[in-house]
């Protein structure tokens, strides 16, 4: 049976590896490969990032199965020890449970460093935008993983205010250094970066979403419950786990 309104998040194990590999390919393609190889590398990167996304959760009387990679990757959770609604705990931080996630902001900051070290002769505005966006995204990731989920709402306002302030600041910088900024790529990169920042935090702030931690003897999994009765989801998982212990 499919567990309604709940899906797994790519926060650990193979799905996290896929996401990290996807981001790495994006950065490597961007930094080291000439066109059109860089585009191919970026496309594969984005494909891996989408493949790392959780599809759905199947449950039987005694099993919980998480499906990722468009349903092709199945992970069965065995020996559950803990089920927690992280969104309802007063001090629960994602970083405490999913330390591997810290690799993603590290990729962003490496990208910013590499970009800064290699200023291009053409399109300096893109160079500046890529650096600023990488730093911006590192900050966004750190905010989500280091602050308690329950208190992220406060930080969402800060991020939106900062983002609104960031755009004129960037264009003012271009003006100051005499860099022409009326270029389609610049607008596209800035638009993408700035739109996805608050959206990413909103994913964790949105009242309709609840983040659930499932801890087994060996692994930790993150699930997101959307528009559903989270309490019922927790109880269903508890029942399945209880049944699994008696068989």
């Amino acid at each position, binding site marked *: 049976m499919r567990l309604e309104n709940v899906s797994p998040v790519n926060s650990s194990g193979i799905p996290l590896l896929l996401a990290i590999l996807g981001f790495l390919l994006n950065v490597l393609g961007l930094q080291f490969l000439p066109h059109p190889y860089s585009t191919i590398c970026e496309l594969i990167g984005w494909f891996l990032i989408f493949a790392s996304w959780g599809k759905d959760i199947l449950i039987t009387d005694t099993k919980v199965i998480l499906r990722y990679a468009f349903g092709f990757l199945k992970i069965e959770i065995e020996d*559950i*020890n*803990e*089920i*927690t*609604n992280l969104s*309802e*705990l*007063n*001090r*629960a*931080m994602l970083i*405490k449970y999913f330390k591997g996630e810290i690799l993603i902001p590290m990729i962003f900051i490496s990208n910013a460093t590499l970009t800064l070290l290699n200023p291009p002769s053409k399109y300096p505005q893109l160079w500046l935008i890529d650096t600023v966006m990488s730093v911006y995204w590192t900050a966004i990731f750190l905010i989500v993983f280091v602050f*308690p989920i329950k208190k992220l709402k406060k930080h969402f306002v800060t991020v939106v205010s900062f983002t609104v302030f960031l755009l004129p600041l960037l264009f003012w910088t271009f003006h100051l250094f005499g860099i022409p900024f009326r270029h389609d790529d610049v607008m596209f990169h800035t638009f993408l970066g700035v739109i996805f920042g608050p959206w990413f935090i909103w994913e964790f702030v949105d009242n309709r979403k609840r983040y659930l931690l499932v*801890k087994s003897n060996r692994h930790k999994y993150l699930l997101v419950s959307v528009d559903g009765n989270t*309490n019922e989801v*927790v*109880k269903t998982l*508890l*029942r399945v*786990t*209880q049944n699994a*212990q*008696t068989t």
Partner: protein
Amino acid sequence: MLKLPDRMEEIWLLRAKGLREIEIAERLGISKQAVNKSLKEAKAKLFEMFLGLAEVFGFEVIRVNIEKGFMVANAKICENEKRIYVFYVPKVGVRAFFEGSDFPEYLLKHALSIGLIKNMNNRELIQYLEE
């Protein structure tokens, strides 16, 4: 009373203290399979106890940890929501405490013995349960 049988409780407590199944088997002079079976049964019973409490009293379950034997839940009392902490304490059974109340000494001692806290401190235990 909501309580595990003595032998099962002893095995569960050793596991809660961090011993591996093989170490428990050696200490108690039984097979690893017997320890595994007993732990499975203990977990099933604890899940049943916590789930049963949540169903009967209409708690919203926030956190259940079977290895250490505790549950964090929200209880609705006269339209107000109140945090409730439920523990399984060896030889005592299941005990529940409302947010703001002081935990008794026997509970803090138990929490200390299974490594939930490092000092006999009410605040430290709440902090552990809430993060």
